[in-house]
């Protein structure tokens, strides 16, 4: 085998790429993992709640070994109406016991660790090199990539190159990305002393809390906000549908400033220091945007394959990326066994993905993008809730109305018809 011939080339050392590299290297394949950033994670950004069940299957000791921030035991959903907020607060200390449910992570640290696991298993990591394009042979089969100046050849190329995947587009597996199918995520990491975080959020040890916000957070643009606790920092951000940003000619950076200054958010950030500001696309179009997942000599995994679920209360992409890498690694192992890397043989990837939690969950939430395409959800309902609570808690000299009358009055003032409300509730129940 010459220096630049491999069994598998993996483009992108995000969670999908490094997981695939780890699993294939473990099976004894010659794997090269090419990453354009100076180190794995240097280009990657997420809100940071990693649902870890799938990781546990691959790295049983991840809870001790991986650079995790905090174990999420408390979830708060916050409806913001004007300056008011209405919270649903859920805490379950059982989440602090194995099997854990979710941890916050910071990608510059987590992705580095994951890539190190792949390297330790024998994969060759090449950071600081951008893959320019896939190389095809005369029959149109993908046979390698052009990485920097070098041609690397392999039986199979796995595109794990994230939401802006140029490779899937070049290989003809997907067309241009539609503004309806992506959201712009804007995020800040805000440093605070560990003791302050634990006091402020009532956390014990490495417990963590995840806030999700709907409503005023986005000025009515479809989307929501988040605030997650790390060990010594907070991850705070907004995810806003791009078609809506364009339609309303909104400036995400401005909306983000308003969010940080919102009376429900600002006190949580008090005295914090901005450590980093960033932005990243979220491919949240659901099944509708999933491209052709395989071709002769090529597979697409993770964000590049549109495998993200945003149901309005949580964004999941990292665990789906890892899950897709597991299916891809299995398919490649089988293809190798049969010595057949044709599209037909690699279609096993799709079969396995369809059977795994990844596509099961994608199907379960397949109505979510449609349901979330509803302006009432991001403006009127959060306002309605805030208004209703304000009425219920306001004491004036005229004596109180029963709460149900207050609720009825709020609904009347909001100009949402009962029929509309019923339809939205039904739609929500079906979507979520």
């Amino acid at each position, binding site marked *: 085998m010459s220096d630049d011939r491999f069994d598998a080339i993996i483009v992108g050392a995000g969670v999908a790429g490094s997981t695939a590299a780890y699993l294939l290297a473990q099976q004894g394949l010659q794997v090269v993992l090419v990453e354009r950033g100076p180190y794995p994670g240097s280009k990657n950004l997420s809100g940071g709640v990693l649902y870890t069940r799938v990781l546990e299957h691959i790295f049983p000791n991840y809870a001790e070994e991986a650079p995790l921030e905090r174990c999420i035991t408390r979830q708060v959903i916050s409806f913001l109406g004007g300056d008011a907020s209405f919270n649903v607060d859920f805490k379950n200390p059982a989440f602090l016991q194995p099997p854990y449910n979710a941890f916050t992570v910071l990608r510059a640290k987590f992705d580095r660790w994951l890539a190190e696991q792949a390297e330790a298993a024998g994969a060759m990591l090449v950071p600081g090199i951008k893959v320019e394009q896939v190389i095809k042979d005369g029959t149109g089969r993908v046979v390698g990539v052009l990485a920097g100046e070098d041609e690397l050849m392999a039986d199979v190329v796995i595109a794990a190159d994230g939401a802006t995947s140029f490779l899937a587009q070049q290989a003809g597996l997907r067309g241009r990305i539609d503004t309806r199918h992506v959201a712009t995520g804007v995020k800040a990491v805000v440093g605070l002393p560990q003791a302050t975080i634990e006091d402020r959020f009532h956390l014990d040890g490495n417990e963590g809390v995840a806030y999700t916000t709907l409503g005023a957070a986005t000025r009515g643009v479809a989307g929501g906000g988040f605030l997650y606790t790390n060990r010594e920092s907070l991850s705070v951000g907004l995810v806003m549908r791009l078609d809506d940003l364009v339609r309303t000619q909104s400036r995400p950076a401005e909306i983000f400033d308003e969010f940080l200054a919102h009376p429900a958010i*600002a006190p949580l950030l008090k005295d914090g220091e901005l450590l980093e500001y960033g932005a990243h696309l979220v491919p949240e179009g659901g099944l509708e945007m999933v491209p052709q997942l395989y071709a002769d000599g090529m597979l697409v995994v993770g964000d590049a394959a549109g495998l993200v679920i945003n149901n309005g209360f949580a964004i999941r992409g990292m665990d789906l990326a890892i899950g897709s890498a597991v299916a891809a690694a299995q398919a490649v192992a089988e293809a190798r066994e049969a010595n057949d890397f044709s599209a037909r043989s690699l279609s096993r990837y799709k079969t396995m993905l369809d059977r795994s939690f990844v596509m099961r969950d994608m199907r379960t939430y397949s109505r979510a993008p449609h349901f979330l395409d509803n302006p009432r959800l991001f403006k009127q309902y959060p306002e309605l809730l805030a208004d209703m609570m304000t009425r219920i808690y306001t004491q004036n000299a005229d004596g109180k109305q029963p709460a149900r009358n207050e609720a009825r009055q709020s609904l009347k003032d909001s100009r949402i018809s009962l029929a509309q409300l019923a339809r939205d509730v039904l739609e929500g129940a079906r979507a979520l």
Partner: protein
Amino acid sequence: MKRLSILEKIARDKFELDEGHPHIEVHEEEIRELCPDLSCLYVCPANVYSEQNGRIMADWAGCVECGTCRVACPPEGLTWVFPRGGFGIVYREG
């Protein structure tokens, strides 16, 4: 937390600047023809685009590579590629 301007926020980030190798090219005429709203001027979370003396400029060195403009802008309006390997935004938190 102190309110910071977008420039002050970006100043906290780490970049490997690839001097002399812009990764964004603006095609002025195409943008004006196909996207009269000039979405790049408002949709970029890092305020990379601005209008100066009636021309659209891309201050590409402060681009965080989110990909938003590449999707929002008509394909003829921008040539947008990733910076060369090793260059561009370097997240230390992520």
